[in-house]
């Protein structure tokens, strides 16, 4: 086969792929025609999706990054200020606190939500009685509006007539009552719990699907080899669903960095920024204080940090030869 034949696509209709080719002066134009036939229809079909993706995602992200270098209130003419917004972020104690709170929220989602979702998924996988009904019940919080959930938890936490404190007083545990959303010791946990409650169902469904896709042969082989239940779970099941668990962990981290609705609805980030997270802080900077440039810089900083959270471990794994 000649060099030209190697470069030619093998699925062209005009000439069979096995037919011997001879070099021709018309080669380049033929190649162009073949390229057109092969790729142009695909490109035309993909173009709307690419345009939408470019407009709604790439352009938005690019614009956010662009405006992070400006002092701008979204109405006035933007004034280029270089990296001043990022310098201000580095010195902003509220941002640092918001970042710490977001990290705490991430840890809480990873150590509470993920194990809880796995336990429930395992429970359903074992096909306990009423598992279909339970699966629906566990999933319901996912489809409830965050406003309704925040109101519900607001009623639970309310200090003077909320359900939790009323129940504690009823049980003679009045000394345990506290301002759940205002106490430094409990505020961030109290703000995170509604998030756990609304998202564990989605993780449970992902993990349940992963469990249901496990090879029965492998599980039976493990049983034949005499592993007990704990060993089967720890050494067979968990390694086999490592991928979906990773997806759930990824969702947990991105959820923590994106959340702002529960925080704004329950505490507005207060008192004294005790419950401020990066999402709520950038929302307040942009929409309540007219600091769109600064808000964009916060968004860009957070985006880079989240990206690094995922890229760096992959790079390290690749260097250690695990990722291949």
């Amino acid at each position, binding site marked *: 086969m000649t060099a030209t034949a190697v470069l030619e696509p093998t699925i062209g209709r005009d000439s069979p792929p096995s037919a011997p080719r001879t070099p021709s002066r018309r080669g380049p134009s033929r190649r162009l025609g073949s390229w057109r036939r092969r790729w142009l229809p695909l490109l035309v079909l993909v173009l709307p999706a690419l345009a939408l993706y470019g407009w709604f995602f790439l352009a938005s992200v690019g614009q956010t990054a662009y405006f992070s270098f400006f002092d701008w209130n979204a*109405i006035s003419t933007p004034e280029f200020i270089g990296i001043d917004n990022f310098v201000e972020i580095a010195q902003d104690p509220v941002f640092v606190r918001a970042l710490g709170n977001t990290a705490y929220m991430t840890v809480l989602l990873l150590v509470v939500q993920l194990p809880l979702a796995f336990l429930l998924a395992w429970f359903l996988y074992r096909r306990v009685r009423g598992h279909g009904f339970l699966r629906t019940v566990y999933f319901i919080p996912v489809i409830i509006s965050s406003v309704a959930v925040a109101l519900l938890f607001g009623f639970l936490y309310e200090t003077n007539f909320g359900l939790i404190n009323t129940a504690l007083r009823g049980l003679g545990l009045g000394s345990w009552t506290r301002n759940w959303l205002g106490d430094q010791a409990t505020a961030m946990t109290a703000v995170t719990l509604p998030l756990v409650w609304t998202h564990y169902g989605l993780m449970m469904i992902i993990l349940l699907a992963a469990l249901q896709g496990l090879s029965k042969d492998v599980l039976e082989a493990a049983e034949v080899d005499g592993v007990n239940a704990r060993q089967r779970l720890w050494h067979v099941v968990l390694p086999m669903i490592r991928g979906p668990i990773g997806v759930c962990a990824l969702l947990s981290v991105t959820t923590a960095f994106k959340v702002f609705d529960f925080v704004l609805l329950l505490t507005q980030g*207060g*008192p*004294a920024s005790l419950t401020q997270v990066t999402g709520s802080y950038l929302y307040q900077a942009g*929409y309540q204080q007219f600091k769109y440039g600064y808000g964009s810089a916060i968004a860009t900083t957070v985006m880079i940090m989240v990206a690094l959270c995922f890229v760096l471990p992959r790079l390290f794994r690749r260097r250690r030869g695990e990722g291949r």
Partner: protein
Amino acid sequence: MHQVKASRWLTLAAACALGAASLAACSTAQPEPSDDAPVTIRLAHGWVGEVPQAAAFVPAIEDYAADHPEIDLVVEESAGNAIGEKIATQMAAGEEPDVFLHWGVNRSSEYIEAGRVADLTDLLDAHPDVEEWFDPASFSAAQLDGGTYGLPMSTYIHMFLYDEQAFSDAGVGAPETLDDLLDAVPALAAEGAIPLSANITAQRYLFELYVAQLIDDNEELREFAETGEGHDSEVAEAAQAIIDLREAGAFPQGAESLTTLPSLELYNAGQALSYYQDSWTLGNLSPEVADRTVVGLAPAIDASSDVKMVSGSNYFVYMSQKAYDDPAKRDAAWDLMTYLAGPEVAARLLEVSDAPSAIPMDELNLDESEISSVVTDLIEMRDELGPDEIVPLFEQYLSPEALAGLQDLAERLLIGQVGADDVAQAYRDVLADAS
């Protein structure tokens, strides 16, 4: 072969054309207006839902729309403070409403300076009767660089309400000074009740009143609010008063995260025996509780001070510059604005929502039987005070960022993150950050 290819491309082109036609059908292309077509006016406001003014304001808008078929009124609502964010978004998108309710220039100056809000000076000059409706001082928070940009929609009066019978049962009288209140707190708490329902915002209002009473000069107060300079000892004393009240147990547990209307509910439910807040909340005071409620001045930190009360106007109705530039829209928008801020709606707001307006009560055609005695007592008490005895809120002088910083400072004071002696410096830091 070529025919097949051509038909394939024709099919593809037809599909694209169909898609484009569908998108065009979904677009918002407007037909050419005719002379007798109604003028479309977009009105944005936050007096909806559980906001007390909603009970009077929403029906008033519906009545206006029904009475004015020549105006196609499009109402955009977002309850309470959320309207500020909605309007900010619309402004950023260049889609501002024609008429909107918003706070004074402290929170609207960005729009005014960007030329997005109309200066009403010419319209007010052309309609002197409209300007005469209002107390002249009520325009001050809507004025910037010699222009007047809004018509006053309401008046705020900070009020101290208390249950006279409950106070009497506890063996205490009406507290006139801070010391009286501090003395009364143990007796009121012994009744198993919260002595004073004041959430963190109300505590900030009380702090501002105490600073004003200790400075005791309106001009100096304004200078201090804008610079934070020169009154560290007064600020420390006012902050210590709030700390003393907190430590005495005057405020509700969880005041740090208590929002405004739930703090009124504590008073409505009898769990709190007194209440300090802005008068906009009065519409949610239950009628039974109103019957046993007495209106008083806030217990003073310095009884000899001239300053007695915080009151002013800081909520206005504005017209967009776009609407002003279109003669047909300008007339319709002005008509709507004068209706919303005028005597008819002001009377309804007072009768139905207990919301005081910037139009003096004796200028309104009121059904006295419909008005709560708490409101009339409050307005009469305010009207008896002289101009030196009334001060506006600090926030009239502060940008949104500085106001957020001040609120944050109040929260830090309440949860003990900042001591009384450090408040003045912390306030200067807030102002420096905001500038």
